[in-house]
């Protein structure tokens, strides 16, 4: 009986997800598409939770639905309200056929993965190496130890994306109005978000959580502050922002090189220190991810971004001349 109820729930979930995905893609109204996309993200988080992947569920809820939603909503603010998307038939055809090919490939991969009986299963080596990985959460062990190189490159991707945003635009114009009620909620919600972010970072060692979720949570707190106090947050400490933006990847590289000098291999952690090193890397990465996502939400360079550059360059030139 209870299995039947669960399967009804699961089937409803899948059908809703497919319907939402379809309407998100097929609607002509950009605002509607964004709203539907956010709803789809939340539903997808429930799907991941049902598949017993709480790490992914958390990441999807915070990044997929939360931060991406905020990014998309602030992006469509630049368009007129009756904006519809116009694509030529040729572009549409190319996109459709590429999507079709991708769908077939993915379906084949999933089918193959489900039916593969005697292939290589990676979960056993992951579990067997867990005691020397420094953490007890297998997902964190994979992300920050076995495949630390991938995570380093992910951070580089995030940094590159934000650098592109910063190169292209000035900071978006703020919302003019704020509500005292929103400000009141922000005042007690932001401390709560900061604590939750720290908790997610710390708990990542032995339970679902980690740098990406914690960083996105911190960015959410920053976005909330931006929305509630539009006029008061005009001036950023730009040199501090620049340091925070790169500190994650810098720490990661530094630890990797240090471990290379000890163990002859880039990012090959000494088992006794692995837990501490992972925590250090994750803390720095959290700060960088939060900064990157906040800057992406702002949509470009905050005021005075180049000025600090110019000052520091002129100082360097003067110093060189002296």
């Amino acid at each position, binding site marked *: 009986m209870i299995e039947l109820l669960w399967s009804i729930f699961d089937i409803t979930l899948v059908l809703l997800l497919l319907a939402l995905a379809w309407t998100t893609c097929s609607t002509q109204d950009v605002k509607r598409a964004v709203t539907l996309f956010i709803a789809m993200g939340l539903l997808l988080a429930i799907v991941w939770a049902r598949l017993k992947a709480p790490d992914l569920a958390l990441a999807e809820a915070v990044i997929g639905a939360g931060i991406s939603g905020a990014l998309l909503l602030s992006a469509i603010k630049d368009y007129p309200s009756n904006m519809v998307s116009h694509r030529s038939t040729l572009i549409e055809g190319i996109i459709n056929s590429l999507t079709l090919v991708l769908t077939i490939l993915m379906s084949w991969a999933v089918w193959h993965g489900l039916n593969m009986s005697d292939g290589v299963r990676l979960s056993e080596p992951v579990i067997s190496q867990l005691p020397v990985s420094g953490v007890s959460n297998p997902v964190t062990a994979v992300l920050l130890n076995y495949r630390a190189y991938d995570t380093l490159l992910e951070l580089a991707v995030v940094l590159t994306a934000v650098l592109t945003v910063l190169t292209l635009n000035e900071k978006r114009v703020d919302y003019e*109005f704020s*509500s005292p*009620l*929103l400000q009141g*909620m922000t005042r007690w*919600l932001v401390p709560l978000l900061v604590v939750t972010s720290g908790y997610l970072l710390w708990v990542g060692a032995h339970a679902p959580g980690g740098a990406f979720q914690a960083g996105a949570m911190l960015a959410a707190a920053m976005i909330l502050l931006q929305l509630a106090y539009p006029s008061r947050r005009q001036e950023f400490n730009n040199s501090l922002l620049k340091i925070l933006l790169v500190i994650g990847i810098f720490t990661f590289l530094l630890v990797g090189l240090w471990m290379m000098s000890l163990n002859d291999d880039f990012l090959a952690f000494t088992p006794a220190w692995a837990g501490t090193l992972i925590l250090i890397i994750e803390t720095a990465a959290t700060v960088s991810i939060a900064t990157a996502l906040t800057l992406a939400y702002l949509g470009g360079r905050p005021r005075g971004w180049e000025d600090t550059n110019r000052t520091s360059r002129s100082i360097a030139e003067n110093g060189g001349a002296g």
Partner: protein
Amino acid sequence: MIDTLAILAIFSGLFFFLSGSIGLLRLPDLFTRLHALAKADNVGLALVALGVIILEPAVINDIKIVIIWLLVMAASAISSHLVARHALRENRNDD
């Protein structure tokens, strides 16, 4: 007995969710829709949370559920207020 209470609470919560959703679909304009949605969903969530608390023996999880309920209630009240305020302002601009 306890289970019956919990099931009763959860199902009456679902009833409120259902009526809120019907309100969202059937009511004529944005303000009445917000009214139906925010109120009915908060009561619905409270009842579902109550049912789950009755079923869940661990106190720490009960506290978490209460915190979730409070956060959702604050968020839905504030966001309804923001949506309504925005709509009011747009109407005023049209006049």
